């Protein structure tokens, strides 16, 4: 996460999203930046548009993650169940290792059509890694991998949510600026600016 802080302790940009400059005194800001009121306003509008675009992107990413996480949890559930079954059948004293209890499942062949399967006490499961690739793992490794994926996904989601909050703050700042301070200053500027004031309000 990259962010550079200005003197007041607020990050001046965060992961590529520029922070909105908070303007306390509009007059000084205008003279400092050398812009006239209209172009400053146009710049602000443009910034708002950019923020909106980034917000859409982040929201889409968030939705993706939010569907991925329950999927990983389901996989983890199944692997844990298989492991638990394996553990349960190996523990009885007397060394009768070949279990009599296999896992019987009903699974979906196609929409509305189910079939029964018996999952024998195997040591391995296959995990779909994406891009038409499936890899066989031992139950233990599979559980580790799934747990790691789940943690990563949750961490990414948190960072994403923080990014979105930062972005929304910048949008709020820009909107308040846009509607409040600029209007006040424009009202006090020369009469030729009056046309643009009506347009905004």
């Amino acid at each position, binding site marked *: 996460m990259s962010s550079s802080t200005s003197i*007041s302790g607020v990050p001046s940009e965060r992961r590529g999203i520029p922070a909105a400059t*908070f303007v*306390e005194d509009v007059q000084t800001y205008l003279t400092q930046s050398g812009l006239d009121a209209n172009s400053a306003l146009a710049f602000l509008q443009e910034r708002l548009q950019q923020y909106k675009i980034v917000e859409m992107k982040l929201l889409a990413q968030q939705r993706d993650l939010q569907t991925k996480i329950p999927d990983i949890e*389901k*996989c983890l*559930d*199944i692997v844990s*169940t298989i492991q638990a079954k394996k553990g349960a059948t190996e523990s009885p004293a007397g060394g009768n290792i070949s279990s009599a209890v296999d*896992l*019987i*499942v*009903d*699974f*979906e062949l196609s929409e509305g059509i*189910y079939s029964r399967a018996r999952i024998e006490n195997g040591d391995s499961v296959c995990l779909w890694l994406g891009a038409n690739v499936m890899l066989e793992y031992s139950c233990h490794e599979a559980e580790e991998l799934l747990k790691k994926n789940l943690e990563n996904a949750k961490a990414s989601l948190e960072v994403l949510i923080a990014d979105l*909050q930062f972005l*929304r*703050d910048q949008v*709020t*700042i820009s*909107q*308040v*600026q846009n*509607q*409040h*301070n600029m*209007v*006040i200053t424009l*009202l006090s500027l020369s009469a030729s600016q009056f046309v643009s004031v009506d347009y905004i*309000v």
Partner: protein
Amino acid sequence: MQQPKGSKTEIEVTWEDQQNINKFGRLNNRFHELEDEIKIAKENNESLEDASNELILSDEDAVRFQIGEVFTHMPREEVENRLEEMKENASKVLEKLIEEKESVLAQMAVLKKILYGKFKDSINLEED
């Protein structure tokens, strides 16, 4: 937040005000998210209740319990235990969400008082 109606007034927005407004915006967003999450959690709770009722009514010994995408045949007591655990977790989650919602509402009320106090008519903090 809508446009300020009384922009004839000379009220300046300080950095502190801006931060309050930002915080209010964040809380408002979180409030809406929480409402959706609470709705889903309530439905979840109800489904689990229905499931355990069905279980009591049914006679079979091996119940098909859904794990992931498949239905595994499980002995009845195990299903009952699992269901109990899931119900407990679900109700805890619901409780936590409701608590968070209360706290968010309380914070929003405090901020509203501060912001209305300073800006009076120039700000609108209600839902549209």
